[in-house]
């Protein structure tokens, strides 16, 4: 067997696992690994400017491709800086492996320099974590980490490797066998046959059915199967925030996003439905409003790979545990066996839905003197389609995120990258960088806010170093818009700490990194400038000055049912 030292084994296992890109930031506890990375012909390392950025990049890489993202950081502060990024990936079930350096085994527990209990600090925000207690653990643990991250309900896994385990002068057998078995870990793949049949029967007989797709459909690559079932039975399809891009927005059966800032037609249809066919969603609080008032007449079929997500909040009547793609294929087969056809009762249901749509809940006024944030998103979306760009769009968190979810017409799975579960301001820009590295020829757009962008704007340096053609649009209203919206409505316009006075000049900031920065403050410049930027092959930052008072609408009233919505800003 080949003799390799610990650091070499780290690199070799990653190579054997097919890793080509790793994001990271070096430090004392990982210098041996970095030394070996320098010689790897298969793996390219990207130096971020902050460990959080590095892990968000790996996250964006994973979201855009479906592959496992990899990152490496040093011990102590290197590890603690990744906690938000790990929690972000955990919140949205994104597969990634983070290698953290650790102080030498003999120093563990002594409060050594840059020592932190990484396993302890990260435990609640990872799917699993490993501490390599001896060099011989490294290869095995990394393989297991890869396997755990990418199977079942996906998620981030940490592998903590003490400095002495990487020792350059200790050589030992490298075991190339890739077989991984974990006695206590066997995710369910196939759905229960009887339950699948019950679900198929319920779907056939439903008079007012709605399909509800979540992030599991996108992450589980099950979008084709969703389309097949939707078309077969003429089902309306609603989506959670994380499910967006799982069903083409241009399709007439698509109702849009549900929930707190969901579309009127999606929330109404769900509330009045008799059967909800939910796939890969965890019925999060932002999606359901008050659980006890959620869709009172609906029989709920719930397919999820994670049994703990079923009946955690909303009680499922037909629970099916399994992989989304596999179970949906079982459902398709069961429907074929039933010779399922479109239920004639659906004509009346669709008539009803058309009435919901006639409300035009996304319409808004365009006053002369200001650009409204919705227009910007609509414009980017429209031009992207006209120019056939099929872009990957990342967002941060806040009003711009909701506007993107509502107004951008996504057609292709995995093209919408956003932090749904944790709601992390600062994900968007590094995630765009990760996606751009994964797909060098793709158009990658980051839609951000002036608050969010400043959470990870140090990564501009990465775009500079690698000449990444990412496009950044900042919807700049000089305030934290989403919180301010709450303050306007619920706190009597007492604007506590939401004014972002002191913001940099974003155009000059881009210029400082040697990039083109453009400011748009007039409506007449909007379309022409955005078009020019989208067609450019260079990184561009666009600072769009938008209306400070615009609120995200519709807006569900707290503790109400799905249909307790405020529809326009005057109602607030």
């Amino acid at each position, binding site marked *: 067997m080949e003799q390799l030292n610990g650091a070499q084994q780290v690199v070799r296992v990653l190579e054997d696992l097919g890793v080509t890109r790793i994001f990271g930031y070096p430090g004392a506890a990982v210098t041996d690994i970095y030394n070996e990375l320098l010689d790897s012909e298969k793996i390219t390392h990207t130096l971020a400017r902050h460990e959080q950025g590095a892990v968000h990049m790996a996250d964006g890489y994973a979201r855009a491709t479906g592959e496992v993202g990899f990152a490496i950081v040093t011990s102590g502060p290197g590890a603690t800086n990744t906690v938000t990024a790990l929690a972000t990936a955990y919140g949205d079930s994104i597969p990634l492996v983070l290698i953290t350096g650790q102080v030498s085994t003999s120093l563990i527990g002594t409060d050594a320099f840059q020592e932190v209990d990484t*396993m*302890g600090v990260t*435990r*609640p925000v990872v*799917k*699993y*974590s*490993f*501490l390599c*207690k001896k060099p011989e653990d490294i290869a095995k643990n990394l393989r297991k980490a890869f396997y*755990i991250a990418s199977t079942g*309900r996906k998620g981030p896994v940490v592998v903590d490797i003490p400095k002495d385990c990487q020792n350059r002068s200790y050589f030992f057998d490298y075991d190339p066998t890739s077989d991984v078995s*974990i*006695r*206590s*870990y066997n995710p369910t793949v196939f759905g229960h046959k009887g339950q699948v049949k019950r679900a198929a029967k319920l779907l056939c007989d439903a008079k007012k059915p709605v399909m509800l797709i979540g992030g599991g459909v996108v992450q589980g690559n099950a979008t084709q199967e969703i389309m097949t079932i939707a078309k077969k039975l003429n089902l309306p399809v609603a989506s959670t925030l994380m499910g967006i891009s799982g069903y083409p927005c241009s399709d007439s059966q698509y109702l849009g996003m549900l929930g707190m800032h969901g579309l009127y037609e999606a929330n109404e249809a769900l509330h009045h439905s008799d059967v909800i066919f939910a796939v890969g969603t965890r019925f999060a609080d932002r999606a359901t409003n008050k659980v006890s008032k959620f869709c009172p007449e609906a029989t709920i079929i719930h397919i999820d790979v*994670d*049994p*703990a997500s079923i*009946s*955690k909040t909303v009680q499922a009547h037909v629970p099916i545990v399994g992989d989304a793609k596999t179970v949906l294929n079982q459902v398709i087969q069961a429907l074929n066996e039933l010779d399922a056809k479109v239920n004639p009762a659906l004509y009346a249901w669709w008539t009803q839905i058309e009435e919901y749509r006639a409300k035009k809940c996304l319409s808004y006024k365009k006053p002369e003197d200001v650009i409204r944030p919705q227009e910007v998103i609509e414009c980017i979306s429209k031009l992207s389609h006209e120019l056939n760009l099929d872009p990957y769009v990342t967002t941060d968190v806040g009003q711009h995120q909701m506007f993107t979810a509502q107004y951008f017409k996504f057609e292709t799975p995995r093209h919408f990258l956003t932090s749904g579960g944790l709601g992390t301001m600062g994900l968007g820009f590094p995630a765009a960088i990760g996606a751009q590295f994964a797909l060098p020829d793709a158009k990658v757009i980051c839609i951000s806010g002036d608050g969010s962008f400043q959470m990870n704007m140090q990564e501009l340096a990465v775009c500079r170093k690698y000449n990444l053609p990412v496009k950044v649009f900042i919807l700049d209203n000089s305030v934290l818009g989403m919180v301010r919206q709450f303050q306007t409505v619920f706190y009597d316009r007492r604007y506590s700490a939401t004014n972002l006075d002191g913001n940099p000049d974003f155009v000059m900031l881009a210029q400082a990194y040697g990039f083109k920065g453009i400011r748009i403050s007039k409506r007449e410049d909007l379309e022409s400038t955005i078009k020019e930027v989208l067609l450019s092959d260079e990184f561009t930052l666009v600072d769009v000055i938008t209306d400070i008072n615009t609120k995200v609408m519709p807006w569900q009233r707290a503790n109400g049912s799905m249909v307790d919505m405020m529809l326009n800003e005057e109602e607030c």
Partner: protein
Amino acid sequence: MRQIISILLENEVGALSRVVGLFSQRGYSIENITAAPTEDAALSRITILTDGDEAIVERITKQLHKLVNVIKVSSKQDDSSNIVSREILFVKVQAIGHTQREEIKTLCDIFKAQIVDITPELYILQYVDTSFEVDRFLKAVKEQAEVVETVRSGVCGIFRGEQSLHS
């Protein structure tokens, strides 16, 4: 409602802290917990006594099952028709003078408790039974003597009948 949750898990780094962490993270309570290796040295068996209705316990068991190290989880209401469970209690009491020493000894005879250590002024009593009986015994002791110190093991339990937790 007191429920007993039995968990069979792999002895991996941090496995126990993941189990305990899950309870605090999700706001479930642990009244007591015992953990020790099984006949298979790679596995540990944990018994947790918790308080909650059926729905909460179902949620806990699902979340526990999701932990990578956990092989099996089972839960039952803490009642002797479901489960054979025992707890061990040590109680150190003041035992000064012939009368008091005799009274404590009589109490121990009634409860079938043992005196496992003596000094001229102290007894250590040992009592093994269900948690309910342990409570009763301790109450009786407190009425009889000055308690210096107590220590309880937490519940160790095994389900009656066919049901078993093995990998």
